[in-house]
């Protein structure tokens, strides 16, 4: 057995949103609030790839946003490298890279300019930044479109640029929400290969997805979220329990929600 160190612990994270009248109609509910994340606790070991798996609206994105300090929990806390997301959000931000589809790059600038801009916001020294940029741009083949305005890039190119830019400060914990969403198989493979490389370099990666194959391909451990609660959190083998991950997910889901899927 390896000695593994915990790098992230979430402790009873809870997040409730107020619903506007319009949202109430959309969600077909009379409740004025919705509990997106409901007392969620889990931990992530250093150097592993951890997957959050769950259906639409389960609270995956909300959980990752809480971890990235973009929003604050109503109660509970989480610690990344020992820093509290509630009390030391700036320290947390220094140590994480965060990427979701709703964090976008300004259409007006080139990947090259934006990389430098964010490196400055992260206070990365000039020489280190230049050397790291070259490496990241090579990895993702950004060199070809480094001087093209983001607005003129394809979805895949944008995703690659966003990936590179989320890593300007060489964070030790990387949080990706749906990293392969909207990408073709080739670009998706570039991304999954890169996740594995990050792991090889000793980084900790947390991804959220509803794609089983992605979890099976890259993750060491998985947490299944249903209705804002952690249903299971274990290694892939233990969660799959001899079946395919998909089948065991349906079992867990019907057990939690009740009735057949």
């Amino acid at each position, binding site marked *: 057995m390896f000695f593994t160190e915990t790098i992230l612990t979430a402790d009873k994270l809870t997040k409730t949103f107020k619903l506007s009248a319009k*949202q109430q109609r959309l969600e077909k509910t009379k409740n004025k609030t919705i509990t997106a994340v409901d007392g969620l606790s889990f931990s992530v070991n250093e150097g592993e790839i951890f997957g959050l798996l769950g259906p639409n609206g389960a609270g995956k994105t909300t959980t990752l946003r809480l971890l990235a300090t973009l929003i604050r929990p109503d109660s509970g806390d989480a610690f990344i490298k020992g820093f509290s997301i509630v009390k030391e959000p700036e320290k947390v931000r220094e140590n994480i890279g965060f990427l979701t589809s709703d964090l976008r790059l300004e259409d007006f*600038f080139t990947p090259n300019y934006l990389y430098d801009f964010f490196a400055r916001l992260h206070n990365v020294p000039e020489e280190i930044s230049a050397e790291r940029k070259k490496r990241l741009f090579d990895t993702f083949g950004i060199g070809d479109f480094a001087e093209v305005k983001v607005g003129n890039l394809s979805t895949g190119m944008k995703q690659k640029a966003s990936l590179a830019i989320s890593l300007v400060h060489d964070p030790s914990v990387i949080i990706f929400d749906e990293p392969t969403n909207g990408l073709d198989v080739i670009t998706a493979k570039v991304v999954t290969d890169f996740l594995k490389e990050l792991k090889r370099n000793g980084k900790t990666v947390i991804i959220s997805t509803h794609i089983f194959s992605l979890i099976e391909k890259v993750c060491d451990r998985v947490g299944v979220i249903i209705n804002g609660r952690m249903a299971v959190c274990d290694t892939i083998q233990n969660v799959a329990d001899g079946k395919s991950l998909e089948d065991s997910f349906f079992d867990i889901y019907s057990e939690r929600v009740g009735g057949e899927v």
Partner: protein
Amino acid sequence: MKSAVFAVFKKELKRFFSDRRMVITTLLLPGLLIFVMYNFMGNAVTNMIDGGEEKYVINAVNIPKSIKMITEQEQIGFEINETDISELQAVKDSLKDGEECDACVVFPEDFDTAVSRYDSHSGEKAPEIKIYYNSSSAQSAAAYQTLISMLDMYESSMINKFDINTGNEVYDLVDNKDMTGQVFSMLLPMLLMMFLYSSCVSVVVEAIAGEKERGTIATMLVTPAKRSHIAIGKIASLSLIALLSASISTVCTIASLPALMGAESEMISGGVYGIKDYLLTALIILSTVLVMISLILIASAFASSVKEAQTYIIPIMIIVLAAGISGMFGNPPDRSALYLIPLYNSVQCMSGIFSFNINYANIVITVISNTVYTGLGIVILTRLFNSERVMFSK
């Protein structure tokens, strides 16, 4: 960590200056428009006063020498056709049809002698002049009025007892300093406020609500950069752009005001102000821009789209307008407390500077209070950046 302020500052400027459409619509177009519009308006006003170059065609029967001499003067603008009494009916008909002539004057025979012989105390009937005209034609009606005033003037000159201001001296002792002061202090503060507002509004709304709408601001908020530094970087860069745009508009206005004022144009010139006046104005404008930008930034931070932001800032526009208009009436107040009111204080200070009533204490109060308000604006904006309800509302 200060480098974040500078990075944001530089990024906003780059965003603005490399966008040709933005540069043209906020920097060049307003100045050009002001110049063209004011010169056009000025010309229109001048033309109205001059009444154009046209001459009135007058048919005159028995026109006496004395009157003929007057009508031959250049500026009267009459073209006299001497007409025989036998042609009178034909002339009247053509007047009815509105053709050829604008009026017809019929003098009694020997008008000059009859007039000089006439004694107003005698009770006799005075010599009578008849003027035929057609009021349905504006040209004819105007000719009629001009004829009457000319003849009235002739009549009063005959019984002349004294004259007023007939020499070649300059009687109106207004100098161009007072004249400029009056015009500038009334118009410029309001115009400046409008320029400042209109020059910054689109850029500012874009810089917050636009970024929110496109989800690019969140990308900045996951970096360890302090929210306050992001706020300062935005306010500083946007203020610079607004200042630039407003100064272009101002220079164009000062250059075009003489044209706008038409007749009095030689009297009006920005040259009557000294360096000190301009520097004080610049100081006031700078502090005003900071306040204005902060206000618009805060209002548009609440909006989730550019469109929404444009409705949120309408109250600010109304306040700016009201403050600007306040400068058009009366002299700046002396009560120092009034100079704590943002925007209003700027207008009154500028009004004072342009009318040469500089009150340093009030200028200091204005600049300091505006600086404090800007500081407050930064604090509020930082709060808003930290508030997920504001930044991530759906």
